[in-house]
Protein backbone atom coordinates (compact mmCIF):
# COMPACT_ATOMS: atom_id res chain seq x y z
CA UNK A 1 0.00 0.00 0.00
CA UNK A 2 2.87 2.33 0.86
CA UNK A 3 4.21 1.70 -2.61
CA UNK A 4 1.03 2.89 -4.30
CA UNK A 5 0.91 6.04 -2.17
CA UNK A 6 4.61 6.59 -2.87
CA UNK A 7 3.91 6.17 -6.57
CA UNK A 8 1.09 8.70 -6.53
CA UNK A 9 3.24 11.15 -4.60
CA UNK A 10 6.13 10.65 -7.04
CA UNK A 11 3.70 11.21 -9.92
CA UNK A 12 2.47 14.46 -8.44
CA UNK A 13 6.03 15.50 -7.78
CA UNK A 14 7.13 14.68 -11.32
CA UNK A 15 4.19 16.56 -12.81
CA UNK A 16 4.50 19.53 -10.48
CA UNK A 17 8.25 19.93 -10.89
CA UNK A 18 7.83 19.54 -14.66
CA UNK A 19 10.71 17.08 -14.87
CA UNK A 20 12.36 17.60 -18.25
CA UNK A 21 12.85 13.95 -19.07
CA UNK A 22 9.33 12.95 -18.12
CA UNK A 23 7.94 15.87 -20.11
CA UNK A 24 9.94 14.78 -23.17
CA UNK A 25 8.75 11.18 -22.82
CA UNK A 26 5.14 12.32 -22.45
CA UNK A 27 5.37 14.63 -25.45
CA UNK A 28 6.88 11.90 -27.59
CA UNK A 29 4.08 9.50 -26.61
CA UNK A 30 1.55 12.08 -27.64
CA UNK A 31 3.36 12.93 -30.86
CA UNK A 32 3.83 9.33 -31.98
CA UNK A 33 0.32 8.18 -31.10
CA UNK A 34 -1.42 11.27 -32.55
CA UNK A 35 0.53 10.91 -35.78
CA UNK A 36 -0.25 7.21 -35.99
CA UNK A 37 -3.94 7.88 -35.33
CA UNK A 38 -3.92 10.54 -38.02
CA UNK A 39 -2.36 8.17 -40.55
CA UNK A 40 -4.88 5.49 -39.62
CA UNK A 41 -7.75 7.94 -40.17
CA UNK A 42 -6.44 8.94 -43.59
CA UNK A 43 -6.24 5.28 -44.57
CA UNK A 44 -9.10 3.81 -42.55
CA UNK A 45 -12.02 6.16 -43.19
CA UNK A 46 -11.89 6.01 -47.01
CA UNK A 47 -11.31 2.28 -47.11
CA UNK A 48 -13.97 1.68 -44.46
CA UNK A 49 -16.45 3.78 -46.44
CA UNK A 50 -15.60 1.92 -49.62
CA UNK A 51 -16.05 -1.44 -47.94
CA UNK A 52 -19.36 -0.33 -46.45
CA UNK A 53 -20.84 1.00 -49.67
CA UNK A 54 -19.28 -0.84 -52.58
CA UNK A 55 -20.18 -4.26 -53.81
CA UNK A 56 -17.51 -6.54 -55.14
CA UNK A 57 -16.48 -10.15 -54.85
CA UNK A 58 -14.42 -10.90 -51.76
CA UNK A 59 -15.91 -7.99 -49.83
CA UNK A 60 -17.09 -10.13 -46.92
CA UNK A 61 -13.70 -11.79 -46.77
CA UNK A 62 -11.93 -8.44 -46.57
CA UNK A 63 -14.36 -7.18 -43.92
CA UNK A 64 -13.68 -10.31 -41.87
CA UNK A 65 -9.97 -9.64 -42.20
CA UNK A 66 -10.46 -6.05 -41.05
CA UNK A 67 -12.52 -7.22 -38.09
CA UNK A 68 -9.81 -9.70 -37.15
CA UNK A 69 -7.24 -6.94 -37.56
CA UNK A 70 -9.07 -4.87 -34.95
CA UNK A 71 -7.56 -7.23 -32.41
CA UNK A 72 -4.10 -7.37 -33.96
CA UNK A 73 -1.59 -8.08 -31.17
CA UNK A 74 0.92 -5.22 -30.97
CA UNK A 75 3.87 -7.59 -30.45
CA UNK A 76 3.06 -9.37 -33.70
CA UNK A 77 2.96 -6.03 -35.51
CA UNK A 78 6.18 -5.05 -33.77
CA UNK A 79 7.94 -8.23 -34.81
CA UNK A 80 7.00 -7.92 -38.48
CA UNK A 81 7.66 -4.20 -38.71
CA UNK A 82 11.07 -4.77 -37.10
CA UNK A 83 11.98 -7.51 -39.56
CA UNK A 84 10.87 -5.37 -42.50
CA UNK A 85 12.77 -2.33 -41.28
CA UNK A 86 16.02 -4.09 -40.50
CA UNK A 87 18.95 -2.61 -42.39
CA UNK A 88 19.14 -5.75 -44.43
CA UNK A 89 15.37 -6.20 -44.55
CA UNK A 90 13.01 -5.35 -47.44
CA UNK A 91 12.43 -1.79 -46.21
CA UNK A 92 15.91 -1.30 -44.76
CA UNK A 93 16.71 1.50 -47.20
CA UNK A 94 14.31 3.75 -45.27
CA UNK A 95 16.72 3.64 -42.32
CA UNK A 96 14.01 4.38 -39.79
CA UNK A 97 14.30 1.45 -37.36
CA UNK A 98 14.70 2.68 -33.77
CA UNK A 99 13.27 6.10 -34.64
CA UNK A 100 9.89 7.68 -33.84
CA UNK A 101 8.93 7.26 -37.51
CA UNK A 102 9.15 3.48 -37.15
CA UNK A 103 6.95 3.68 -34.07
CA UNK A 104 4.38 5.75 -35.97
CA UNK A 105 4.41 3.17 -38.74
CA UNK A 106 3.89 0.26 -36.37
CA UNK A 107 1.16 2.05 -34.42
CA UNK A 108 -0.58 3.05 -37.65
CA UNK A 109 -0.64 -0.61 -38.63
CA UNK A 110 -2.33 -1.36 -35.31
CA UNK A 111 -4.84 1.50 -35.49
CA UNK A 112 -5.86 1.33 -39.15
CA UNK A 113 -7.97 -1.86 -38.89
CA UNK A 114 -9.67 -0.44 -35.79
CA UNK A 115 -10.60 2.77 -37.61
CA UNK A 116 -11.60 0.89 -40.76
CA UNK A 117 -13.77 -1.56 -38.85
CA UNK A 118 -15.62 1.11 -36.89
CA UNK A 119 -16.06 3.16 -40.07
CA UNK A 120 -17.70 0.21 -41.81
CA UNK A 121 -20.04 -0.27 -38.87
CA UNK A 122 -20.85 3.44 -38.62
CA UNK A 123 -21.67 3.89 -42.31
CA UNK A 124 -23.72 0.72 -42.39
CA UNK A 125 -25.71 1.74 -39.34
CA UNK A 126 -27.07 4.79 -41.18
CA UNK A 127 -30.71 4.35 -42.22
CA UNK A 128 -30.81 2.46 -45.52
CA UNK A 129 -33.29 4.92 -46.94
CA UNK A 130 -30.86 7.78 -46.56
CA UNK A 131 -28.78 6.50 -49.43
CA UNK A 132 -31.83 6.19 -51.73
CA UNK A 133 -33.10 9.59 -50.71
CA UNK A 134 -29.80 11.31 -51.40
CA UNK A 135 -29.51 9.59 -54.76
CA UNK A 136 -33.11 10.53 -55.61
CA UNK A 137 -32.26 14.16 -54.98
CA UNK A 138 -29.72 13.86 -57.77
CA UNK A 139 -26.47 13.61 -55.85
CA UNK A 140 -23.36 12.42 -57.64
CA UNK A 141 -21.52 9.43 -56.23
CA UNK A 142 -18.96 11.67 -54.64
CA UNK A 143 -21.64 13.83 -53.01
CA UNK A 144 -23.36 10.68 -51.74
CA UNK A 145 -20.21 9.45 -50.02
CA UNK A 146 -19.54 12.86 -48.55
CA UNK A 147 -23.07 13.16 -47.13
CA UNK A 148 -22.95 9.66 -45.66
CA UNK A 149 -19.58 10.25 -44.00
CA UNK A 150 -20.87 13.55 -42.62
CA UNK A 151 -23.92 11.84 -41.24
CA UNK A 152 -21.77 9.20 -39.58
CA UNK A 153 -19.39 11.71 -38.00
CA UNK A 154 -20.44 11.00 -34.43
CA UNK A 155 -19.73 7.27 -34.53
CA UNK A 156 -16.60 8.08 -36.53
CA UNK A 157 -15.29 10.07 -33.58
CA UNK A 158 -15.59 6.83 -31.65
CA UNK A 159 -13.27 5.36 -34.27
CA UNK A 160 -10.74 8.09 -33.53
CA UNK A 161 -10.97 7.39 -29.81
CA UNK A 162 -10.65 3.65 -30.22
CA UNK A 163 -7.69 4.03 -32.57
CA UNK A 164 -5.90 6.47 -30.32
CA UNK A 165 -6.68 4.41 -27.23
CA UNK A 166 -5.27 1.34 -28.94
CA UNK A 167 -1.94 2.89 -29.79
CA UNK A 168 -1.20 5.16 -26.84
CA UNK A 169 -1.51 2.16 -24.54
CA UNK A 170 0.44 -0.44 -26.51
CA UNK A 171 3.95 -1.34 -25.49
CA UNK A 172 4.97 -4.42 -27.49
CA UNK A 173 5.39 -2.77 -30.86
CA UNK A 174 6.91 0.45 -29.53
CA UNK A 175 9.50 -1.47 -27.56
CA UNK A 176 10.52 -3.61 -30.52
CA UNK A 177 10.65 -1.02 -33.29
CA UNK A 178 11.65 1.91 -31.08
CA UNK A 179 14.10 0.20 -28.74
CA UNK A 180 13.22 2.43 -25.76
CA UNK A 181 16.23 4.64 -26.45
CA UNK A 182 16.68 7.41 -23.95
CA UNK A 183 15.86 10.81 -25.43
CA UNK A 184 14.91 9.34 -28.80
CA UNK A 185 12.25 6.64 -28.69
CA UNK A 186 11.35 6.31 -25.05
CA UNK A 187 7.60 6.70 -24.59
CA UNK A 188 5.44 6.38 -21.49
CA UNK A 189 4.65 2.69 -21.91
CA UNK A 190 8.20 1.55 -22.67
CA UNK A 191 9.58 3.71 -19.87
CA UNK A 192 7.09 2.08 -17.49
CA UNK A 193 8.32 -1.38 -18.48
CA UNK A 194 11.93 -0.29 -18.01
CA UNK A 195 11.39 1.33 -14.64
CA UNK A 196 9.59 -1.81 -13.47
CA UNK A 197 12.60 -3.84 -14.62
CA UNK A 198 14.86 -1.52 -12.68
CA UNK A 199 12.71 -1.96 -9.60
CA UNK A 200 11.73 1.72 -9.50
CA UNK A 201 8.09 0.96 -8.88
CA UNK A 202 7.24 4.44 -7.69
CA UNK A 203 8.46 5.99 -10.95
CA UNK A 204 6.67 3.26 -12.91
CA UNK A 205 3.43 4.05 -11.10
CA UNK A 206 4.00 7.74 -11.74
CA UNK A 207 4.47 7.16 -15.47
CA UNK A 208 1.34 5.00 -15.60
CA UNK A 209 -0.67 7.74 -13.94
CA UNK A 210 0.61 10.30 -16.43
CA UNK A 211 -0.37 7.91 -19.24
CA UNK A 212 -3.87 7.53 -17.82
CA UNK A 213 -4.27 11.28 -17.42
CA UNK A 214 -3.08 11.80 -20.99
CA UNK A 215 -5.45 9.20 -22.41
CA UNK A 216 -8.27 10.68 -20.40
CA UNK A 217 -7.47 14.20 -21.58
CA UNK A 218 -7.49 13.30 -25.27
CA UNK A 219 -10.65 11.25 -24.95
CA UNK A 220 -12.34 13.98 -22.95
CA UNK A 221 -11.61 16.46 -25.73
CA UNK A 222 -12.99 14.12 -28.37
CA UNK A 223 -16.03 13.30 -26.25
CA UNK A 224 -16.81 16.99 -25.82
CA UNK A 225 -16.70 17.44 -29.60
CA UNK A 226 -18.84 14.34 -30.09
CA UNK A 227 -21.47 15.14 -27.51
CA UNK A 228 -21.78 18.77 -28.52
CA UNK A 229 -23.27 17.62 -31.76
CA UNK A 230 -25.33 14.75 -30.52
CA UNK A 231 -28.67 14.35 -32.25
CA UNK A 232 -31.50 15.49 -30.05
Amino acid at each position, binding site marked *: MDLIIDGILTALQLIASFDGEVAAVTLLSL*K*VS*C*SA*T*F*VSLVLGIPSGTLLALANFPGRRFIISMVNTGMGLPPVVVGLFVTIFL*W*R*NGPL*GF*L*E*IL*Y*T*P*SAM*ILAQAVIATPIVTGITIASIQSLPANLKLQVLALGATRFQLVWILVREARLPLLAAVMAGFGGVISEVGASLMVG*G*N*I*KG*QTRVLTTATV*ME*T*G*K*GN*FDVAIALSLILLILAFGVNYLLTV*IQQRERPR
Partner: protein
Amino acid sequence: MKKCFVLVLLVMLLNAVSSGAAPNAVILATTTSTQDSGLLDVLIPAFEKESGYQVKTISVGSGQAMKMGEKGEADVLLVHSPDAEKKFMADGFGTGRRLVMHNDFVIVGPASDPAKIKESVSAVEALKRIAASGSLFASRGDNSGTHAKEKTLWKGAGINPEREKWYQQTGLGMGQTLNVAAEKKGYALTDRATFLALKKNLGMTILAEGDSRLLNIYHVIEINPVKWPKVNARGGRAFADFMVSGKCQEAIGRFGISTYGAPLFFPDAGRNPASLGL
Protein backbone atom coordinates in the same frame (compact mmCIF):
# COMPACT_ATOMS: atom_id res chain seq x y z
CA MET B 1 -11.64 23.92 -34.46
CA LYS B 2 -11.53 20.70 -36.43
CA LYS B 3 -9.24 22.19 -39.07
CA CYS B 4 -6.98 23.47 -36.40
CA PHE B 5 -6.84 19.98 -34.86
CA VAL B 6 -5.94 18.39 -38.18
CA LEU B 7 -3.27 21.00 -38.75
CA VAL B 8 -1.71 20.31 -35.37
CA LEU B 9 -1.65 16.61 -36.18
CA LEU B 10 -0.05 17.25 -39.54
CA VAL B 11 2.67 19.39 -38.05
CA MET B 12 3.33 16.72 -35.45
CA LEU B 13 3.60 14.09 -38.16
CA LEU B 14 6.08 16.05 -40.25
CA ASN B 15 8.00 16.87 -37.15
CA ALA B 16 8.21 13.23 -36.17
CA VAL B 17 9.25 12.10 -39.63
CA SER B 18 11.94 14.74 -39.98
CA SER B 19 13.51 13.64 -36.71
CA GLY B 20 14.15 10.28 -38.34
CA ALA B 21 17.42 8.55 -39.12
CA ALA B 22 20.58 10.22 -37.98
CA PRO B 23 23.58 9.65 -40.25
CA ASN B 24 25.87 9.23 -37.28
CA ALA B 25 23.86 6.65 -35.43
CA VAL B 26 25.65 3.72 -33.82
CA ILE B 27 23.52 0.77 -32.80
CA LEU B 28 24.77 -0.79 -29.57
CA ALA B 29 23.25 -4.15 -28.73
CA THR B 30 23.89 -4.98 -25.12
CA THR B 31 22.72 -6.96 -22.13
CA THR B 32 20.02 -5.85 -19.75
CA SER B 33 22.46 -5.64 -16.84
CA THR B 34 24.36 -2.67 -18.27
CA GLN B 35 21.09 -0.79 -18.70
CA ASP B 36 19.21 -1.90 -15.58
CA SER B 37 22.18 -1.03 -13.37
CA GLY B 38 22.27 2.48 -14.84
CA LEU B 39 25.88 2.22 -16.08
CA LEU B 40 25.03 3.11 -19.68
CA ASP B 41 23.19 6.24 -18.58
CA VAL B 42 26.58 7.48 -17.42
CA LEU B 43 28.79 6.21 -20.24
CA ILE B 44 26.67 6.86 -23.33
CA PRO B 45 26.23 10.62 -22.90
CA ALA B 46 29.99 10.94 -22.35
CA PHE B 47 30.71 9.04 -25.56
CA GLU B 48 28.15 11.00 -27.56
CA LYS B 49 29.57 14.28 -26.39
CA GLU B 50 33.14 13.26 -27.16
CA SER B 51 32.60 11.60 -30.54
CA GLY B 52 29.55 13.27 -32.06
CA TYR B 53 27.96 9.91 -32.70
CA GLN B 54 24.43 9.20 -31.56
CA VAL B 55 24.09 5.85 -29.82
CA LYS B 56 20.97 3.73 -30.15
CA THR B 57 21.13 1.34 -27.23
CA ILE B 58 19.11 -1.81 -27.69
CA SER B 59 19.08 -3.58 -24.38
CA VAL B 60 18.38 -7.28 -24.75
CA GLY B 61 19.98 -10.50 -23.51
CA SER B 62 23.51 -11.30 -24.69
CA GLY B 63 22.17 -14.11 -26.85
CA GLN B 64 19.83 -11.83 -28.75
CA ALA B 65 22.48 -9.10 -28.94
CA MET B 66 24.83 -11.51 -30.68
CA LYS B 67 22.07 -12.62 -33.03
CA MET B 68 21.59 -8.97 -33.99
CA GLY B 69 25.32 -8.77 -34.62
CA GLU B 70 25.23 -11.90 -36.78
CA LYS B 71 22.55 -10.30 -38.93
CA GLY B 72 24.39 -7.00 -39.20
CA GLU B 73 21.61 -5.21 -37.29
CA ALA B 74 24.01 -3.81 -34.71
CA ASP B 75 27.34 -2.01 -35.04
CA VAL B 76 28.90 -2.92 -31.74
CA LEU B 77 28.10 -5.30 -28.89
CA LEU B 78 28.73 -5.10 -25.16
CA VAL B 79 28.07 -8.62 -23.92
CA HIS B 80 28.98 -11.11 -21.20
CA SER B 81 28.72 -14.62 -22.55
CA PRO B 82 32.37 -15.60 -23.19
CA ASP B 83 31.82 -19.05 -24.70
CA ALA B 84 29.21 -17.82 -27.17
CA GLU B 85 31.41 -14.80 -27.91
CA LYS B 86 34.36 -17.02 -28.86
CA LYS B 87 32.15 -18.89 -31.28
CA PHE B 88 30.84 -15.58 -32.63
CA MET B 89 34.41 -14.45 -33.35
CA ALA B 90 35.45 -17.82 -34.78
CA ASP B 91 32.53 -17.62 -37.21
CA GLY B 92 33.88 -14.30 -38.45
CA PHE B 93 31.02 -12.05 -37.37
CA GLY B 94 33.24 -9.72 -35.36
CA THR B 95 36.44 -7.89 -36.24
CA GLY B 96 37.67 -7.20 -32.74
CA ARG B 97 36.83 -8.33 -29.22
CA ARG B 98 38.27 -6.52 -26.25
CA LEU B 99 38.00 -7.03 -22.52
CA VAL B 100 36.15 -4.15 -20.84
CA MET B 101 35.25 -4.98 -17.27
CA HIS B 102 34.04 -7.64 -14.90
CA ASN B 103 31.98 -8.12 -11.83
CA ASP B 104 30.56 -11.32 -10.51
CA PHE B 105 27.43 -13.37 -10.37
CA VAL B 106 25.83 -14.15 -7.05
CA ILE B 107 23.12 -16.54 -6.01
CA VAL B 108 20.42 -14.67 -4.14
CA GLY B 109 17.41 -15.88 -2.22
CA PRO B 110 15.19 -15.28 0.78
CA ALA B 111 17.01 -14.55 4.03
CA SER B 112 15.41 -17.65 5.58
CA ASP B 113 17.42 -19.73 3.06
CA PRO B 114 15.28 -22.91 3.04
CA ALA B 115 17.85 -24.85 0.99
CA LYS B 116 20.69 -23.85 3.34
CA ILE B 117 22.93 -22.81 0.46
CA LYS B 118 24.76 -20.35 2.66
CA GLU B 119 26.71 -23.26 4.07
CA SER B 120 27.81 -24.51 0.67
CA VAL B 121 31.42 -24.06 -0.35
CA SER B 122 30.86 -23.56 -4.08
CA ALA B 123 28.26 -22.30 -6.50
CA VAL B 124 27.77 -25.80 -7.86
CA GLU B 125 27.13 -27.17 -4.40
CA ALA B 126 24.63 -24.36 -3.78
CA LEU B 127 22.69 -25.39 -6.87
CA LYS B 128 22.80 -29.02 -5.77
CA ARG B 129 21.29 -28.04 -2.44
CA ILE B 130 18.55 -26.01 -4.16
CA ALA B 131 17.72 -29.00 -6.35
CA ALA B 132 17.80 -31.44 -3.43
CA SER B 133 15.44 -29.32 -1.35
CA GLY B 134 13.18 -28.60 -4.33
CA SER B 135 13.22 -24.87 -3.57
CA LEU B 136 11.98 -22.58 -6.31
CA PHE B 137 14.63 -21.27 -8.67
CA ALA B 138 13.82 -18.47 -11.11
CA SER B 139 15.84 -18.69 -14.31
CA ARG B 140 16.11 -16.04 -17.02
CA GLY B 141 15.48 -18.67 -19.67
CA ASP B 142 16.31 -16.19 -22.45
CA ASN B 143 19.77 -17.24 -23.70
CA SER B 144 21.26 -14.18 -22.04
CA GLY B 145 24.78 -14.22 -20.63
CA THR B 146 23.39 -14.86 -17.18
CA HIS B 147 21.30 -17.75 -18.47
CA ALA B 148 24.34 -19.20 -20.24
CA LYS B 149 26.34 -19.01 -17.03
CA GLU B 150 23.52 -20.64 -15.11
CA LYS B 151 23.34 -23.51 -17.59
CA THR B 152 27.08 -24.10 -17.25
CA LEU B 153 26.72 -24.25 -13.49
CA TRP B 154 23.82 -26.72 -13.64
CA LYS B 155 25.87 -28.84 -15.97
CA GLY B 156 28.75 -28.69 -13.51
CA ALA B 157 26.36 -29.87 -10.82
CA GLY B 158 25.24 -32.74 -13.03
CA ILE B 159 21.61 -31.66 -12.83
CA ASN B 160 19.20 -31.03 -15.67
CA PRO B 161 16.60 -28.73 -14.13
CA GLU B 162 14.63 -28.07 -17.34
CA ARG B 163 11.64 -30.23 -16.52
CA GLU B 164 11.63 -29.81 -12.77
CA LYS B 165 8.65 -28.20 -11.11
CA TRP B 166 10.76 -26.01 -8.86
CA TYR B 167 12.64 -24.58 -11.86
CA GLN B 168 10.79 -21.65 -13.43
CA GLN B 169 11.96 -19.86 -16.56
CA THR B 170 10.71 -16.28 -16.72
CA GLY B 171 11.94 -15.33 -20.19
CA LEU B 172 12.36 -11.79 -18.82
CA GLY B 173 15.24 -9.44 -18.12
CA MET B 174 17.35 -9.65 -14.97
CA GLY B 175 15.39 -7.05 -13.02
CA GLN B 176 12.05 -8.66 -13.67
CA THR B 177 13.38 -12.14 -13.01
CA LEU B 178 14.61 -10.96 -9.60
CA ASN B 179 11.16 -9.53 -8.93
CA VAL B 180 9.62 -12.92 -9.74
CA ALA B 181 12.09 -14.74 -7.49
CA ALA B 182 11.50 -12.26 -4.65
CA GLU B 183 7.74 -12.51 -4.98
CA LYS B 184 7.82 -16.32 -4.91
CA LYS B 185 10.51 -16.51 -2.24
CA GLY B 186 12.79 -18.40 -4.59
CA TYR B 187 16.45 -18.34 -5.55
CA ALA B 188 18.05 -16.77 -8.62
CA LEU B 189 21.42 -16.30 -10.23
CA THR B 190 22.08 -12.63 -10.94
CA ASP B 191 24.92 -10.30 -11.74
CA ARG B 192 25.89 -8.32 -8.69
CA ALA B 193 25.31 -4.94 -10.34
CA THR B 194 21.65 -5.50 -11.11
CA PHE B 195 21.08 -7.04 -7.70
CA LEU B 196 22.62 -4.12 -5.84
CA ALA B 197 20.69 -1.65 -7.96
CA LEU B 198 17.39 -3.40 -7.21
CA LYS B 199 18.06 -4.60 -3.68
CA LYS B 200 15.94 -2.00 -1.94
CA ASN B 201 12.65 -3.46 -3.18
CA LEU B 202 13.52 -7.14 -3.19
CA GLY B 203 13.98 -8.35 0.38
CA MET B 204 16.53 -10.92 -0.80
CA THR B 205 20.09 -11.47 0.30
CA ILE B 206 23.26 -12.75 -1.32
CA LEU B 207 23.69 -16.37 -0.23
CA ALA B 208 26.50 -17.67 -2.43
CA GLU B 209 29.36 -15.63 -3.84
CA GLY B 210 33.10 -15.55 -4.38
CA ASP B 211 33.43 -18.74 -6.39
CA SER B 212 35.80 -18.25 -9.34
CA ARG B 213 33.21 -19.86 -11.57
CA LEU B 214 30.89 -16.96 -10.81
CA LEU B 215 33.03 -14.41 -12.62
CA ASN B 216 31.03 -12.20 -15.02
CA ILE B 217 33.16 -10.77 -17.80
CA TYR B 218 32.12 -8.14 -20.32
CA HIS B 219 33.66 -7.74 -23.76
CA VAL B 220 33.06 -5.16 -26.44
CA ILE B 221 32.82 -6.60 -29.97
CA GLU B 222 32.97 -4.70 -33.25
CA ILE B 223 30.83 -6.13 -36.01
CA ASN B 224 32.45 -7.24 -39.24
CA PRO B 225 31.30 -4.94 -42.07
CA VAL B 226 32.55 -7.37 -44.72
CA LYS B 227 29.55 -9.60 -44.10
CA TRP B 228 27.10 -6.73 -43.84
CA PRO B 229 28.20 -3.59 -45.70
CA LYS B 230 25.55 -1.46 -44.02
CA VAL B 231 27.22 -1.86 -40.64
CA ASN B 232 28.58 1.40 -39.29
CA ALA B 233 32.05 -0.01 -38.68
CA ARG B 234 33.66 3.34 -37.98
CA GLY B 235 31.06 4.19 -35.36
CA GLY B 236 31.34 0.74 -33.82
CA ARG B 237 35.09 1.07 -33.64
CA ALA B 238 34.81 4.51 -32.06
CA PHE B 239 32.52 3.12 -29.36
CA ALA B 240 34.76 0.13 -28.69
CA ASP B 241 37.80 2.40 -28.47
CA PHE B 242 35.92 4.60 -26.05
CA MET B 243 34.97 1.67 -23.82
CA VAL B 244 38.61 0.72 -23.28
CA SER B 245 39.86 4.31 -23.03
CA GLY B 246 41.33 5.51 -19.75
CA LYS B 247 38.55 8.02 -19.18
CA CYS B 248 35.76 5.50 -19.64
CA GLN B 249 37.53 2.86 -17.57
CA GLU B 250 37.87 5.30 -14.73
CA ALA B 251 34.15 6.12 -14.95
CA ILE B 252 33.32 2.41 -14.84
CA GLY B 253 35.44 1.95 -11.71
CA ARG B 254 33.76 4.89 -10.01
CA PHE B 255 30.21 3.97 -11.00
CA GLY B 256 27.97 3.05 -8.09
CA ILE B 257 30.36 3.94 -5.27
CA SER B 258 28.36 6.96 -4.17
CA THR B 259 25.02 5.11 -4.31
CA TYR B 260 25.93 1.61 -3.14
CA GLY B 261 29.13 2.18 -1.25
CA ALA B 262 31.00 -0.19 -3.54
CA PRO B 263 31.73 -0.24 -7.28
CA LEU B 264 29.37 -2.35 -9.41
CA PHE B 265 31.93 -3.09 -12.13
CA PHE B 266 35.71 -3.43 -12.17
CA PRO B 267 37.54 -2.00 -15.21
CA ASP B 268 39.79 -4.51 -16.98
CA ALA B 269 40.80 -2.94 -20.29
CA GLY B 270 44.21 -4.03 -21.48
CA ARG B 271 44.52 -6.71 -18.85
CA ASN B 272 45.54 -10.17 -19.79
CA PRO B 273 42.36 -12.31 -19.86
CA ALA B 274 44.37 -15.07 -18.20
CA SER B 275 44.65 -12.96 -15.06
CA LEU B 276 40.88 -13.32 -14.70
CA GLY B 277 41.17 -17.04 -15.08
CA LEU B 278 40.02 -17.19 -18.70
